[in-house]
C-alpha cells in the first residue's frame, strides 16, 4: 500500500491574497525608491509644461521653455532645429529624425560649429533620454549663453518620441 505524503497546503484564496500583497509591496517599494524620478515626471515637469502650454505664455527671456510632444511636432514643422544632447553612441543607435547631435561634454568646437550652421533666431528644441535626464537642460543653458533666443526642452525626450511611433533615424550625424 502506497502512502502519499502531503504537506501543509494552501487554498486558492490564500495564494491569491499573498500574490496580491507581493505585488502591492513591490509596487510600494518601487514608488518609494524612485520617488524623486516619479515626482519629477508626474508632479513637477510635465504639469509645468502643460500649464505653460495651456496659458500660451512664454517664460522669462533667457530661460528654458518646457515643451510637450505636440509642441515639438508643430515646431519642427515650422522649421525649429532639434538637438540631441545624449552621447554620440546613443545618437548613432537611434535619434529623432533630423536631429543634430550636440552631446554634453568638453567640446567647445561642437557648439561653435552648431552656431555656424544654425542662426541664433531659429528656435532650438533640446532633448535627451526622458524625464530622468538633465543633459537637455545643461545643453539648453549653454545654447542660451551662446545667444540663442528661443531654446525649448522636450522633457519626454527620445523615449516619448519613439513611443509615439514618430520618425526615428540611426547612424552618425551628417
Amino acid at each position, binding site marked *: 500500500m502506497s502512502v502519499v505524503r*502531503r504537506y501543509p497546503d494552501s487554498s486558492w484564496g490564500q495564494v491569491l491574497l499573498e500574490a496580491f500583497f507581493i505585488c502591492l509591496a513591490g509596487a510600494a*517599494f518601487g514608488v518609494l525608491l524612485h520617488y524623486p524620478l516619479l515626482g519629477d515626471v508626474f508632479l513637477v515637469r510635465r504639469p509645468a509644461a502643460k500649464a505653460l502650454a495651456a496659458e500660451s505664455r512664454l517664460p522669462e527671456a533667457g530661460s528654458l521653455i518646457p515643451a510637450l510632444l505636440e509642441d515639438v511636432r508643430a515646431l519642427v514643422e515650422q522649421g525649429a532645429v532639434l538637438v540631441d544632447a545624449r552621447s554620440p553612441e546613443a545618437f548613432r543607435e537611434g535619434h529623432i529624425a533630423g536631429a543634430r547631435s550636440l552631446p554634453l561634454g568638453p567640446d567647445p568646437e561642437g557648439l561653435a560649429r552648431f552656431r555656424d550652421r544654425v542662426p541664433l533666431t531659429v528656435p532650438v528644441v533640446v532633448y535627451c533620454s526622458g524625464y*530622468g535626464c538633465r543633459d537637455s537642460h545643461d545643453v539648453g543653458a549653454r545654447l542660451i549663453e551662446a545667444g540663442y533666443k528661443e531654446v525649448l526642452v522636450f522633457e519626454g525626450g527620445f523615449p516619448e518620441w519613439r513611443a509615439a511611433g514618430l520618425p526615428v533615424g540611426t547612424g552618425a550625424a551628417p
Partner: protein
Amino acid sequence: MAGGGSAGWDGGCAVTGHPLGRLLYHLCRLAVGGVFLYAGAVKGADVVAFAGEIANYRIVPEPFHYLAAAVVPMIETMAGILLLFNRRVRAAALVAGGLNLVFMLALGAALARGLDIGCGCFGAGAASGVKEALWRDLGLMAAIVLTFLLRGNDPLSR
C-alpha cells in the same frame, strides 16, 4: 492529513512525494527565482533606461512607462527572493507567472507589429531579440508552472 483549507493542488499527481519530483521542484524554483532576482536587480539599477525599453513596445502610454519601470523590477525582485528562500512559493510563482505572461504578450505584440527592438528583459544593455526572448519566456513559464504544481513535494517550503 493536509493542512486546513487544502484545495488539493497536487492530489493524484504521480510525482508527489517522490525524490525526483522534489529535485525537479527545487531546480525549477531556484532557476525561476534566480532569473527573476537577476532581471529585477539589473532593470532596477537603471530605471530610466528600462523606461526607454518599455516605451519601445509602444503599449504603455507616456509617461506611465516610468511608473512601470519603477514598479516591475521591484515586484520581480520580491518574487525572486521568495522563490530562492523557499517561502510563499505558490504566491511568488503566481506573481512570476503573471509577469511572465505580460512579458510574453508584449513580445508577441511587438513581433506581430514587426517592431525591430531589443527585448529589454535584462535591462537596456541586453541584446537579445524579440523571438529569442519569447522562446526563453516560454521555457521560463514551464519552470514556473512546475514550481507551482510541485510545491507540495517539499516539507520545508512555506
